[in-house]
């Protein structure tokens, strides 16, 4: 199978919610070193509500579904997670508008759409969007999108591409240990963040790994 259907995407987001809720406490602990320790809770709050609203989400196609998820996430994720993760879903929705099945190329486009949307959100509030090296979730998302695109170029299967993306996300998160945070609130604690991964990037690694594993069941 070289395409993901709307049903597959719905199942993937369901899995994503499950992973985020299960990791509420570890994600918080990760954030307490250099942030205010609310990341896991804020994120889980939105995804718990997503599960509550699950049956009333719009599912006409992939774009509509992702946008509908984004609205719940924007409303219920606390702190900065609402705007960041909400805009990611909004960007992903725009990149998949009207689609009812997507190829790996489309998946790359969706990831890039999410990244661009997060960067725009950052730019509005902080004057510039985060790039790789700022110690944010972008440090996991960009390598993931790059790895997926590269794997697609080499002709790997959709699932192998997803696996490569997940591995790159984990590595990207690992690499943030060497960086001193400089964006957002974590930017004000500076040196204290050294030797610890960014919580958002770490979260992306965990989520993508679980999704890549889960997607194998679609075969």
């Amino acid at each position: 199978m070289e395409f993901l259907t709307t049903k597959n995407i719905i199942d993937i987001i369901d899995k994503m919610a499950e992973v985020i809720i299960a990791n509420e406490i570890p994600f918080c602990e990760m954030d307490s070193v250099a942030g205010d320790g609310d990341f896991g809770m804020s994120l889980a709050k939105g995804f718990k509500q997503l599960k509550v609203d699950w049956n009333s989400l719009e599912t006409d196609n992939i774009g509509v579904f992702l946008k509908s998820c984004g609205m719940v996430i924007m409303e219920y994720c606390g702190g900065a997670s609402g705007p960041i993760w909400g805009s990611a879903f909004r960007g992903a929705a725009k990149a998949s508008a009207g689609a009812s099945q997507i190829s790996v190329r489309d998946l790359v486009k969706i990831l890039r759409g999410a990244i661009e949307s997060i960067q725009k959100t950052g730019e509005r509030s902080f004057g510039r969007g985060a790039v790789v090296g700022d110690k944010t979730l972008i440090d996991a998302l960009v390598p993931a999108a790059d790895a997926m695109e590269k794997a697609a170029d080499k002709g790997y299967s959709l699932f192998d591409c997803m696996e490569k993306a997940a591995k790159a996300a984990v590595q990207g998160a690992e690499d943030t240990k060497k960086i001193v945070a400089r964006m957002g609130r974590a930017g004000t604690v500076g040196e204290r963040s050294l030797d610890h991964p960014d919580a958002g990037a770490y979260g992306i690694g965990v989520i993508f790994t679980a999704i890549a594993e889960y997607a194998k069941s679609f075969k």
Partner: protein
Amino acid sequence: MKKIINTPESFVIEMCRGIEAAHPELEFVEKYKVIKRKIINKNKVTLISGGGSGHEPAHAGFVGTGMLDAAVCGDIFASPSQIQVYNAILKTQSNRGTLLIIKNYSGDCMNFDSASAMAKEDDDAIVDSVYVNDDIAVKDSLYTVGRRGVAGTVFVHKIAGAAAEAGKTLEEVKALAKKAIANVRSIGFALTSCTTPAKGAPTFSIGDNEIEYGVGIHGEPGIAREKISSANSLAERNVADICADINLDKSEIALLINGFGGTPLQELYLYNNAVTQEFKKRNIKIYKTFVGNFMTSIDMAGASVSVLKLDDELKKLLDAPANTPALKV
């Protein structure tokens, strides 16, 4: 700590229902926790502010003639979501555009900015924003990039509110709000911690004879933990700090002595006396004084001093009528 409470979860909603019941000219949109004027004037610029709850009367108490059109209420000390702000924008739209008055905290900025972008993109709304950063205590903090927005925000509501009421355009109202922001400074100190309803215990511990100088409005740290001193010496220091940050030589100012929620009015008036003497010593003329609880930190004891440096234009706007639950001019 004892509180008048049913459950922490229903705290903000029940409080807002109480505000609506006491002020029939206001309407509480419960789904989005928005307190708005019941009747929106389509022919003036709409002003929206908001932020975490716990700062009452800010901001719902400043909704009314001559000030805000709506206040968006977050949970205690947490920014409202962008969906709440987005819906506040849509429900209060006029033909003249909307100005968001945002206190400079990262969470507030991201949620208000994202809401504004969404209203512009999806609904062709005309929205602009200003950011208040009047607290001279710290440059960056756990919650901000740059200075924090605190009690001086009330002056910005007043100035922008009067400008909007006078029928000025969005650009003009924004420029006047920015002028107020450029001329407002605040500094505060805490004698005790605040106690959030969810936790029910003090947020931070502080000795019986200690104060936190430069404290934030969420009980977050300021400049120094130190031994308490007399009202006169605190006033001298507050005024000196403000004068070191903005040139007030031969200026006229508006003064706001703000209580953080746990300090009785008698102490606030006593403190106003001390602060007023300090300005007199420096030949700085006080044009108008406000004393009371305007931007609280729930039940924290302590006070802040805010100063708005005035010119004729700002004086006129300051003197314009305002009729809101928490401020009447």
